[in-house]
C-alpha cells in the first residue's frame, strides 16, 4: 500500500488542508451565512457567471474543490483505520475514499470545462 502512493497522498493532503485552512472559512461564511442572511449583498447571477468565465477563476475553483476533497479522503481513511479500528479493510477504504475524491474532482473539472 505505501511504497510511493501514501507519501504522495500525504503531500496532496497537506496542500489540500492548507487551501482549506486559508480559503474555506471566508467562503463558507459568505456563501453559507452572510449572503443567505442578507448581512452582505450577494453577487448577482450575471456577475458570478462573468467571474467564472475567466480561466483563472476556473483554475481557482478547481483547486479549491478538488484538493480539499483529497485532503478529506486521506484524513478520513486514517480516521476509519484508527477511530473505528477498520485497518483490516485497508484497501477497500483507501479505494472508496480516494475514489470519492477523484469522482468529485472529475465532476468539478467537467462542470468547469463545460461552462461555455
Amino acid at each position, binding site marked *: 500500500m505505501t511504497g510511493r502512493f501514501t507519501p504522495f497522498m500525504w503531500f496532496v493532503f497537506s496542500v489540500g*488542508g*492548507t487551501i*482549506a*485552512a*486559508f*480559503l*474555506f*472559512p*471566508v*467562503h*463558507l*461564511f*459568505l*456563501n*453559507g*451565512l452572510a*449572503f*443567505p*442572511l442578507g448581512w*452582505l*449583498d*450577494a*453577487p*448577482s*447571477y*450575471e*456577475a*458570478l*457567471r*462573468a*467571474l*467564472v468565465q475567466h480561466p483563472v477563476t476556473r483554475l481557482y*475553483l478547481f483547486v*479549491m*474543490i*478538488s484538493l*480539499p*476533497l483529497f*485532503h*478529506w*479522503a486521506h*484524513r*478520513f481513511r*486514517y*480516521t476509519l483505520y484508527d*477511530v473505528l*479500528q477498520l485497518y483490516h479493510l485497508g484497501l477497500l477504504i483507501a479505494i472508496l475514499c480516494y475514489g470519492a475524491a477523484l469522482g*468529485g474532482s472529475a*465532476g*468539478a473539472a467537467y*462542470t*468547469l470545462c*463545460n*461552462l461555455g
Partner: protein
Amino acid sequence: MSDLAQYTPYHPRWYRRRMPVLWWLKDRAYVKFVLRELTSVFVAFFALTSLWQLRALAQGPDAYARFVARLKAPIFLAVDIVALGFVLFHTITWFNLTPTAMVVRVRGKRVPDMIVAGSNYVVWVLVSAAVAWILTRGVK
C-alpha cells in the same frame, strides 16, 4: 473482548490490555484529536456544496435562484454554522501545527514557532479580506 491474559508461546502470563472500542473518549486530548480529524468531513461538505453551487450556476439563472433560495432554509443555515465551526477549528489547528511540521531556519537559527504560526494567520486575514472584497465589491 476477553479479559483473560493472552497466551503467547514465549510469555504465558503477561497481561495484554485490549484497546477499547471507544478508546478516544477516555482522554481529553484524544477527543480533541478526533474532533480535529472530523473537520475533514466538513471540509469535504463545503467542497461538495461549492461544486453544487457551481453546477447550479452553470445551469442558468433559474437553477441558481433555486439554489440560493435553498441555502436560506433553516436546516442549511444550521448545518453551515456547525460546518463553519469545524472549518475554523481546522484552520486554527492547522496553523498552530505548521511550525512543528516545518522548521524554518534563517541564518542558521530556528525561527520561533509563534512567528511561523502567526504569519499564517496574517496571510489568512489578508486572503480572506481579498476574497470578501472580490465577492462583495469587486463584482457587480
